[in-house]
């Protein structure tokens, strides 16, 4: 039951009008008006009633819509609206059981509560009276300083630097000044680990990012890279007229405590990164990658204060899908991975591609005298301290102390913002734009004004409700806001345009030329920092790193006789199984651009490799997006994990018909506590691999992000996530009509394996199902891999390949099964025909090896000669053919049949686990 509480003085007729013509559907719903509602959670003989409402300070976007719609009905006198939901639960439960049901299923105490009869339902917001707050760091003793460090999450070095700075000025800082420094210097905003000094073995790396990932881009020096590592997203040339930008963000910590809100605002945030790139881009595609603990994780092993992974999974999925669907961006690509070590720190990666005119692809630069204009949503207490929260570790108290860090998204506000901003861009009304993301205004304005200086009047910022202090206004992370710099001559037109679309736009300050950050509240100066100190004053971090490869038990189980059962088990594993339940709930058709959808094949339920779109509806050019990620390999060797992730992302681009001529990469590192030398060492290893691979594949990195300190502390124990690197790739395709899909097309066609199979099952799904990790992690030979990919893409471009699928988790066994059941066509293959890199005498190892740079390819017999001519020189072999039987047959070494499995059984095993 939906509950709307109106704080209103209405005549009965008007009330009936509001209910009958607005709130209730006349065909399917009934309504009842109560003046003094009885909504206490109580035990009755028939059913229990539980009413759930949002906590004070949490705004439900529906409330604003109701206010507007009530006015449309010409009904005046409604002062406020609060929404709630009432559940009727049949059955006999005691108070304790009811409490369990409520807290586990019906509400999240971070944002909601059960309404009791006496609760104040329309609470008054507190008022704020100005009082300048100074923090006494000059007179503070050691204990006080430690307290200040903790409060603002400063390191000792940082606080010393700050103290020295203010001592020179002869005054204490204000709270706004310390907050600004805390936000600007946070790991989330400046990546102090990546940019710090790292001692690794005998060498000192001064700025890991510059020495690996950015260095690859610099050396490759591709003319089509238009803007790299300097803006909110990386930008590449698309067709000479248009450019593409791409960014992937993490929103891990918020998603851990409030999955729905955390994930949806993560998506909203990355979309604003795209809006804030160059002079603003139109978001055209989403890709989402999640890492959770397995959905069958036992409840009794759950650390205190942690939500169950199934609930996190469902909440994150819903948050991302609701937001993306509502703003009309197709979600066409993604992945979901499972590992127990994500139990307290789920990972949520949201990525967005944008399209913008090439000549607007560079970041703008405002002149002194231009105005600071805040556009979009109003400012509330949402997400205060999100950045510093995201930069620290989670503890069992995180879910109770972090309430103000969780934000509630309003996707329609964001959609309005997109619609309006793109019009303003095309009319040239502003000179620069950036998003209000982590750190709120403090980061956005502080960064924009780094080269000029700025004066901001915080009392001009439109607020959702009263009671916010000047510092809260400055650091609030309320969603759906952007900042633009506009010349005074354009301001009237800009404000008129925003008003016409019903979107708030407010001048809150002006850029200066004094290189100072000055904030005012009701005429009082509350912050006065030099840009030099704010942006360059941070002491560089120095850390030690070591790396030693761990040794795991080498598996010693006997080779099973019938591998059909093992194949079914791998297909049904959480990592490999079908994610259709998730994918169908995303709109992947909006904008009408999809060329290759996430689900492909005869019944549109097979796992496609990469997504392809046609961003400009009357052009033949396409954009390919793919991702590579495998945290299991990182448990053995982070270097090869990174190399494998890059290879995987590129394989998928090749598999759908793309090539490596214009492919750019993004990195997203989610790591544990990098203060631990071995964890930092793993990061150094992975970053080094990024450089080594990118330079040889010829695929530059254009942007990236890191999320460190993903660990959880409880009862003295620490759970750290596996090192996780997500590689996202974006490629340009000349002709979308060349796209192919992974499903087999015709019986009697030949099946080739392209690439070399090694005894590489370390971190594989096969070993995992047998309870092992192993040590022989899949490696990459990038020179050979590049040659192979170039040849194969040429063969596909010439139309010689009917279907192609890359080999990843579960190796050949999974890939062949997927190609067959996606097509409803059988296959017969022989393992003894497979080109091996080293002798392997076990069928199971050949079938489930996860060696990189391998593909399965379907070629028509009449194209055989031509195909083999084009791919000459690379390691490949015909290993069987497509059949019209409803069965997958695999013959092992010595020609014994080791798998004979009906397609429907394979498909059922793959589809069953997440058919929710």
């Amino acid at each position, binding site marked *: 039951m939906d509950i709307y509480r109106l704080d209103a003085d209405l005549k009965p007729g008007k009330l009936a009008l509001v209910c009958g013509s*607005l709130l209730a559907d006349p065909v399917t719903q009934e309504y009842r008006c109560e003046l003094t509602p009885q909504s206490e959670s109580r035990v009755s003989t028939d059913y229990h009633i539980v009413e759930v409402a949002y906590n004070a300070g949490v705004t439900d976007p529906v409330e604003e819509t109701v206010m507007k719609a009530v006015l449309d009905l010409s009904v005046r006198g409604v002062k406020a609206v609060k929404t709630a939901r009432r559940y009727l639960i049949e059955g006999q439960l005691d108070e304790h059981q009811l409490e369990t049901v409520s807290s586990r299923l019906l509400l999240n105490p971070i944002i909601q509560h059960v309404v009791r009869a006496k609760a104040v339902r329309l609470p008054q917001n507190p008022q704020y009276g100005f009082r300048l707050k100074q923090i006494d760091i000059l007179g503070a003793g050691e204990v006080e300083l430690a307290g200040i460090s903790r409060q603002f999450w400063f390191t000792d070095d940082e606080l010393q630097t700050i103290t020295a700075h203010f001592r020179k000025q002869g005054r204490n800082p204000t709270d706004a000044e310390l907050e600004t420094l805390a936000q600007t210097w946070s790991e989330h905003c400046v990546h102090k680990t990546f940019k710090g000094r790292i001692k690794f073995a005998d060498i000192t790396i001064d700025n890991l990012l510059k020495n690996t990932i950015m260095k690859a881009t610099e050396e490759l020096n591709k003319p089509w890279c238009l803007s790299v590592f300097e803006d909110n997203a990386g930008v590449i040339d698309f067709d000479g007229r248009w450019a593409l930008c791409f960014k992937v963000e993490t929103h891990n910590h918020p998603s851990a405590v409030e999955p729905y809100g955390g994930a949806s605002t993560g998506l909203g945030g990355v979309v604003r990164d795209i809006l804030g790139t160059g002079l603003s881009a139109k978001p055209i595609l989403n890709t989402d990658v999640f890492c959770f603990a397995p959905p069958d994780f036992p409840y009794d092993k759950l650390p205190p204060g942690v939500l169950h992974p199934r609930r996190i999974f469902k909440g994150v999925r819903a948050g991302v899908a609701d937001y993306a669907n509502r703003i*009309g961006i197709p979600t066409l690509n993604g992945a979901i991975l499972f590992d127990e070590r994500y139990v307290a720190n789920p990972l949520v990666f949201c990525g967005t591609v944008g399209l913008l005119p090439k000549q607007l692809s560079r970041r703008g630069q405002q002149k002194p005298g231009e105005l600071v204009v805040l556009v979009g949503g109003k400012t509330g207490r949402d997400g205060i301290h999100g950045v510093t929260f995201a930069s620290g570790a989670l503890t069992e108290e995180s879910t109770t102390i972090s309430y103000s860090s969780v934000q509630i998204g309003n996707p329609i506000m964001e959609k309005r913002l997109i619609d309006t901003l793109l019009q303003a861009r095309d009319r040239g009304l502003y000179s620069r734009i950036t998003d209000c993301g982590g750190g709120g205004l403090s980061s956005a304005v502080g960064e924009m004004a780094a080269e000029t200086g700025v004066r901001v009047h915080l009392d001009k910022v439109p607020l959702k409700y009263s009671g916010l202090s000047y510092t809260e206004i400055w650091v609030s992370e309320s969603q759906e806001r952007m900042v633009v710099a506009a010349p005074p001559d354009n301001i009237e037109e800009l404000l008129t345009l925003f008003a016409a679309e019903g979107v708030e736009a407010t001048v809150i300050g002006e850029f200066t030329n004094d290189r100072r950050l000055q904030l005012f509240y009701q005429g009082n100066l509350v912050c006065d920092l030099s840009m030099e100190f704010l942006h360059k004053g941070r002491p560089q971090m120095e850390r030690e790193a070591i790396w030693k490869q761990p040794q795991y038990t080498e598996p010693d189980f006997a080779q099973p006789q019938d591998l059909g059962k093992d194949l079914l088990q791998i297909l049904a594993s959480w990592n490999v199984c079908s994610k259709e339940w998730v994918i169908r709930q995303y709109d992947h058709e909006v904008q009408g651009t999809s060329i290759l959808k996430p689900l492909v094949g005869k019944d549109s339920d097979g796992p496609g490799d990469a997504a392809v779109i046609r961003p400009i509806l009357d052009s033949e050019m396409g954009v390919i997006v793919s991702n590579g990620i495998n945290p299991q390999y990182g448990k053995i060797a982070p270097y090869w994990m990174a190399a494998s992730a890059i290879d995987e992302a590129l394989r998928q681009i090749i598999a759908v018909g793309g090539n490596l001529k214009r492919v750019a990469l993004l990195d997203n590192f989610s790591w544990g506590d990098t203060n631990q030398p071995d964890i930092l060492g793993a990061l150094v290893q992975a970053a080094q691999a990024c450089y080594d691979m990118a330079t040889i594949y010829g695929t530059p990195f254009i942007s990236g992000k890191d999320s460190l300190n993903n660990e959880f502390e409880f009862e003295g124990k620490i759970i750290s996530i596996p090192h996780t690197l997500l590689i996202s790739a974006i490629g340009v395709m000349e002709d979308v009509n060349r796209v192919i899909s992974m499903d087999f097309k015709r019986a009697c066609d030949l099946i080739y394996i392209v690439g070399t199979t090694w005894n590489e099952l370390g971190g594989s799904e096969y070993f995992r199902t047998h309870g092992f990790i192993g040590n022989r992690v899949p490696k990459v030979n990038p020179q050979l891999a590049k040659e192979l990919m170039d040849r194969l893409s040429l063969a596909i471009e010439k139309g010689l390949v009917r279907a192609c699928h890359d080999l990843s988790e579960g190796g050949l066994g999974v890939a062949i099964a997927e190609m067959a059941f996606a097509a409803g066509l059988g296959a017969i293959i022989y393992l003894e025909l497979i080109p091996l890199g080293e002798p392997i005498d076990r069928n199971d190892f050949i079938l489930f090896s996860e060696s990189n740079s391998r593909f399965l390819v379907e070629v028509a017999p009449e194209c055989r000669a031509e195909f083999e001519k084009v791919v000459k020189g690379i390691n490949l072999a015909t290993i069987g053919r497509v059949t019209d039987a409803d069965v997958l047959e695999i013959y092992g070494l010595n020609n014994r049949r080791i798998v004979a499995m009906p397609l429907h059984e394979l498909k059922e095993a793959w589809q069953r686990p997440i058919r929710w």
Partner: protein
Amino acid sequence: MSKVRTLILRAPGTNCDVETAFAFQQAGAITSLVHINELIRREQRLSDYQIMVVPGGFTYGDDISAGKVLANELRLKLGEDVERFIDKGGLVLGICNGFQVLVKAGILPDPWRTNQPLLTLAANDSGKFECRWVHLKVNKESPCVFTKGIEHMYLPVAHAEGKVVASPEVLPKLNVVLYYADENGSSEAGYPHNPNGSIANIAGICDASGRIFALMPHPERCIRGTQHPQWTRQGVKEYGDGFQIFLNAVKWAQSL
């Protein structure tokens, strides 16, 4: 002959306006994306157009119920304009959220004939938003001008509230244009062929004149051959199944 002018109505949360405009342009029309505020403020006039489209999206977030807030706006602030537009022979097309809006505004099934809406679009039986392709059978008896000459189509749906619900008295009087069906054209198949549990497998309806048409599936997402989910298996056709709807509309409007 002057070109047909199509108004694509925008409101906060509209998100299929650009591809809908593209479909009409391909069919030979001139299109304008017009914000509802522009109509309310009289900066734009409905009477300058021959076709009005309420495209897909989540207008006003679909808060309260899908399409409800925009429906009330249309009815209360632009009711007379819309009535005049219809009386003068203009065409009205509602797609997905547009279907929900036209029904909840009382423009369908029978424009303004009664104060009490006769049918509604409710939450899908699956309880979920779903994006999938569906087979549609066209009712040959239907007066709908948009579907002339079409027998069946394969189009995507993407919605959470698409289940047509009508009372037993209303049901036989509805001008049903499209039924969900399976690949053989049979309407007996059930979910997921009928993706939302719609009564009598209804996917689209029109008014008695056949000039006001609304449907849950998205014809504008199937204009080019490469939008078809099986084009990599079956080869590329020049046009998608949805294109004829736009051609029909533009051709009809040319005679106005």
